[in-house]
């Protein structure tokens, strides 16, 4: 098939340096430089793939489910009802504000479910796609990221119910509402940070996957999901308590929607700092593991 007329390259003519006759991208793989921090440019260029992976996760999750995307709503709503009945029977509600308990609880459940869904999906994300990881290169960070973005879509659906609940109980949001995106972002960053740690660890040690449901169960009770910090946690313990970054995210989220006394800045600051440290550490650890993932997964 190869015709004689075509030029062939003889060893002597072969160039000795990598030139740049085309403005092509250059990739350098160097074993001596095994680790670099996250390449954000590369992540940005791969955004199409992020959407594709997110869409895949959502479609696969809901296509064969009877109730479909309603599942995203069902979970927090049922949890809300259960705790509403429970504390109703107990006759004492772990809430400090004037808002009905159901709304208070739902405001905690929304960001919590964002974290829980993100983590349970992200932890397995690398292992589930090991077949792809061992065949083709793409920024591996996209896999846990896609899990978080997919959870964010669920969060959006469940938030519609919250709007309905607030309208039903006649709760008008205050000016604090403008801070809402910030607290959602905080929850997303916590989810991403933990997702990076857990997915990379799970790729190396499969038993991590089994501990996540338990960790989430513990987290549910050490975060102000079905109670308010002001109602249960003693004042002097609050700073320690807010080392759990979800404390700042959930309390802030609740305050942005229901108003009332603002959560203390110190508490928010601690949560944010912990979340940032966690995320940066997760990124670094993930990048470190990324090099050995295809060998060890």
């Amino acid at each position, binding site marked *: *098939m*190869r015709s004689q007329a075509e*030029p*062939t*390259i003889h060893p002597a003519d*072969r*160039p000795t*340096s*990598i*030139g*740049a*006759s*085309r403005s*092509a*991208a*250059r*990739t*350098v*793989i*160097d*074993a*001596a430089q*095994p680790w670099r921090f996250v390449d954000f440019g590369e992540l940005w260029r791969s955004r*199409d*793939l992020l*959407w*594709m*992976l997110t*869409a*895949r996760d959502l*479609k*696969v999750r809901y*296509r*064969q489910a009877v109730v479909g995307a309603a599942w995203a709503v069902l979970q927090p709503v049922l949890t809300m009802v259960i705790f509403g009945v429970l504390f109703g029977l107990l006759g004492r509600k772990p809430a400090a504000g004037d808002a009905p308990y159901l709304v208070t609880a739902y405001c905690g459940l929304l960001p919590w479910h964002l974290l829980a869904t993100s983590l349970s999906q992200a932890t397995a994300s690398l292992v589930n*796609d090991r077949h*792809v*990881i*061992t*065949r*083709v*290169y*793409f920024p591996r960070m996209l896999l846990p990221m896609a899990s978080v973005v997919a959870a964010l879509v669920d969060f959006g659906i469940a938030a519609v119910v919250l709007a309905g609940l607030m309208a039903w109980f006649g709760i008008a949001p205050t000016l604090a509402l403008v801070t809402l995106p910030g607290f959602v972002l905080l929850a997303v960053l916590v989810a991403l940070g933990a997702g990076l740690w857990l997915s990379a*660890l799970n790729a*190396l*040690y*499969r*038993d*991590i996957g089994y501990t996540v449901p338990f960790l989430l169960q513990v987290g549910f009770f050490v975060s102000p999901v079905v109670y308010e910090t002001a109602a249960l946690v003693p004042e002097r313990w609050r700073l320690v308590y807010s080392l759990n970054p979800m404390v700042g995210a959930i309390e802030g989220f609740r305050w942005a929607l229901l108003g009332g006394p603002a959560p203390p800045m110190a508490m928010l600051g601690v949560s944010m700092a912990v979340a940032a440290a966690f995320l940066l550490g997760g990124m670094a650890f993930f990048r*470190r*593991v990324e*090099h*050995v993932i*295809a*060998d*060890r997964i």
Partner: protein
Amino acid sequence: MSDLAIRVQNVSKRFRLGTGASYGRFSETLQDWAVGLFRRPWAWWRGQTGETAKPTRDVWALRDVSFDVAQGEVVGIVGRNGAGKSTLLKVLSRVIHPTRGRVELVGRVGSLLEVGTGFHPELTGRENVFLSGAILGMSRREIRRKFDEIAAFAQIEPFLDTPVKRYSNGMVVRLGFAVAAHLEPEILLVDEVLSVGDVAFQKKCIGKMDEVRRQGRTVLIVSHNLPSIVNLCGRAMLLDAGKIVFEGSPADVVRQYLATVRSAAGEITWPDLDRAPGDPGVKLCSVRILQDDGRQPTGDVDIAKDVLIEITYRNLVEGTPLYAGIWLKDQLGTFVLSSHNARSQNLTPDPWYGRPYPRGVFRTVCRIPGNFLNEGRYHVTPLLGRVPQPALVLEESTIAFDVHDTGAMREEYTGSWAGPVIRPRLAWCTEPLGEGAEARPAKE
């Protein structure tokens, strides 16, 4: 054509076998880790994550590999199983990280290490085209632009909105290749893709490869399909035990490759079960060439006598229905024959074909009749698989034998018989039709 596309400098890759290599338990590692952290703080960060002083066996899949590929060159990589071909391609496509050395690539890299990368069975054909395309590095806009072309190439238009789990194997392969074929990288890395699908589809694939070559893109191919290496590539390299041992024109490299496959012993065995080719369910034990119903393996056989090819293997999973087969190729890599112990390919039914095997060692023998092959060297590829799946053990040209012309088939003719791949005895008959007969063929 004057610039380099790929430069590989002293690349080595080590795999660790033994403890914690692939499935370490966290609790164990945590223990090691704590000890290691105490002894050598920060050592784990520098590349020894969870790997402490426990004994591990290192395997160097690549040793000090260096080469350059110019833009527009098509280079083939040949070598036996385990020579490091796939590892090299995975290093170049950034799937795995080299232990030592440096690689530079200029241009967009597309790697095709498998057909249908990233396909999800629950998604439809259309959704999978977008997903797989994005994983292989195409933008959404690019895929949308080429979508009709991809669907037409794969010939699955009526099923575009059907989940891929309902596709036949052939359809999945066609769709997967169609996506990959429409990738337009400046450097294309291909592994074994040419060996999938039926003959017609393989031809289509080779045609596509040729098109890529003519467009002046750089291609690096790893393949067992030796004729396609000769036809497509401008240069080839022979890899053995992780090193480049020979480099030159594809025809020379193929000849060199086949010459290194030893024939003299007529026997190849894998005494160590862990290192034997196979999967966790079945392992190859040995392949032997026998003659005269003898027990002594030989690499030299008489053209007039039957050749027995004996494959022994160990079944490790109770009740697996196994089959065995062989491929025969000649000196230039031309595919001579493919045969299995399946009922339809067997002169006398093999009672074990498709039967659930108990655990243990089995021996399957294939008899190639005498007066059938030509003189020269033939390469045997043993195959094992589970009925009805494709072969899971396939040791390409792992053993060879030489057929010697002992004169049995050349009493009347003394010239050279070189050329034909086989030289079978066929039924010939001449009859006189008399002087008055018309010169027309006999009526059936």
